[in-house]
């Protein structure tokens, strides 16, 4: 899952990037409107975390531009502006959620989770495929009732496969969802990553879950 943070305050941006990355999200962070507009149009993010008061304009302009271009990317505004009028304007311009500063990081995580589930039309917080169960809120994977120990990124990839079931995910698509713009990747990093995930699933008694589609990528059927 890939998230874009548009936040001009260094400390907040840094904390959010670190916290979300540790939860398995691929996180890009920009500190101004221009970069934010550019990235949000270029890359398909799963959620935008948007501050309103940016040095070169209002975050609402980004929101407007996004919706005018028919981009359905979920947006959560995180702002110090806390009046009903501010929130009302935000929702009218197409935000999906609004969180006022100062906020609890845990709450932001839950709200981002909810936005992503809505984006992939998952109602409820558990995805099930045979013996595999993914609890999207607790971010835990289980085989029958045994917990499968996965890293945050491994969980994120498994989550992506489950959300886009039966669809072939290219290596670049997978990379886009787990690595931010800043991360450097080697050419076979996704293959290595998928192999490690397969081994963990095999150990948990789910040997043939991830299939390779030659020349295209991977899928879960």
């Amino acid at each position: 899952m890939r998230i874009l943070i548009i936040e001009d305050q260094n400390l907040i941006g840094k904390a959010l990037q670190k916290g979300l990355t540790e939860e398995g999200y691929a996180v890009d962070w920009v500190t101004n409107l221009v970069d934010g507009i550019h990235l949000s149009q270029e890359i398909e993010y799963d959620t935008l975390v948007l501050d309103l008061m940016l040095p070169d304009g209002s975050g609402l302009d980004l929101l407007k531009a996004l919706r005018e271009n028919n981009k359905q990317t979920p947006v959560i505004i995180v702002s110090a502006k806390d009046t009903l009028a501010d929130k009302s304007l935000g929702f009218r311009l197409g935000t999906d959620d609004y969180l006022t500063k100062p906020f609890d990081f845990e709450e932001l995580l839950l709200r981002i989770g909810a936005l992503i589930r809505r984006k992939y039309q998952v109602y409820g917080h558990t995805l099930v495929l045979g013996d595999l169960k993914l609890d999207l809120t607790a971010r835990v994977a289980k085989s029958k009732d045994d917990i499968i120990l996965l890293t945050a990124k491994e969980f994120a990839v498994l989550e992506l496969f489950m959300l886009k079931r039966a669809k072939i995910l290219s290596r670049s698509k997978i990379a886009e969802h787990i690595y931010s713009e800043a991360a450097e990747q080697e050419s076979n990093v996704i293959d290595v990553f998928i192999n490690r995930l397969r081994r963990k699933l095999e150990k948990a008694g789910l040997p043939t879950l991830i299939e390779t589609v030659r020349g295209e990528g991977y899928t879960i059927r």
Partner: protein
Amino acid sequence: MKTISLSNRLLLATGLIFIVFFITSIGFFYRGQTRLAVQEMDRLLENEALTISTLVNVDHKGKLDFEFSRQFLLHYQSLNFSSFFRFFFAENQTVARESNAAPAIFCDKTQAFRFERSGATNYRVISYRFTPSPEVGDDLPPGVKAPEMCLVIGTEEGPYVELVLKTIYATLPYLLAIFVGSLILLWTMIRTLMRDLNALTGALAASDFSSTRAFPKLPPTDTLEVSAVVEKLHVLHNQAAEVYNDMILFIARAAHQLKTPVSAIHSTLEVLVRRDRTKEELLVGLSDLGLGVKQMSQLTQKLIASTRVAFESQADRVPINLIQFFETLWKVFQYKAEIREITCSVSGDRHTSVLGDEYLLTEIFGNLIENSILYSKPGGLIQISWEAHGETTHIRVGDRGPGISHDVQAHIFKPFIRGDERIIGGSGLGLSIAKSAVNALSGQLELIASSDQGTVMQIILPSFKK
């Protein structure tokens, strides 16, 4: 009516009432007196069973107006008055002729309607001019001219005082009616005059200033004083509302500004404690927290300074030598400036001193220099100069920063307004603090030039003269 003041209206009303009361009373008094005199005369004449003629009128001076009968005129010389009615023919102040038993009272035409006493009898002396009609004149005996005559009426009745008292008794109901009428009139007028004031008081009493910030709708008024009060109330309310709004805005903005570092500290701390951390991770986290705390502390200091300068207006004014002041002040900023290779030039008469307060001056120039450093490009120059102009000293602080945009210039001294939002680090309070501090010293602070070549601020402070 707007141009007549309430006091003048009351004065006018009272004067008017008194004039009306006075004139009416006098009028009634004389009218009553005349009527009484006529009645008296009629009574006496009736008692004496003498028909001289018809008494037509007695004016207030006591002049009688008779229509003498032709018969009387024919015989007036031979009339033998047995009572007190006597005619004196007065010519050249001598008695031309008198009737028998006439009391020795002479008529004085200049004193009408007076009482005299002869023996035990009161006499009323009434003079009148008698001019017979032509046909009467024809009947006068030869050698007798139409005389000026005195009518003397003798009576046992009371003297003039009694007549006056009677008059007063007779006119008292009228006077009372006039008095009560005047009171009602006065009361009505005062009520009318006070109507605006009462309406205003009522409207103000019914207004709840705490529940609404809008000025209550007051009734329309046409009284000069009440209009002035309403107008002044409006002005005062607007001023109070402005101060109140500024205060609320300041608090809201201050709270808003504080949210940013609070938020940063909150998020950093939450992310930090979500997992087990290595020592290095902890150190980085703590350092971030420290930055957040520093931001908050700087903002808090500015907020405190904002409040403090407002209370320093009573500060003692002491002479402060400018060159010494700036040399000391620059040391505070030297480190920050050197990092960005910004230099400072100070020029002005070494002996110039201003009258001020050390703390306020530090707030003024500290904030200006801090802004200059913040907005200057690396390698920039800050120029401080001054010139004494008699009672005042003009001090200029200039930098070579990007200037202040035209839109912002008008609001630059309001709290939480930044010249350039892209500059991170300013609290947006510096110039508003400087302005308050300058005001507290009865000085002036103005932006005298701003372009992409830089900004120059001018501060005018009272000079110190030895």
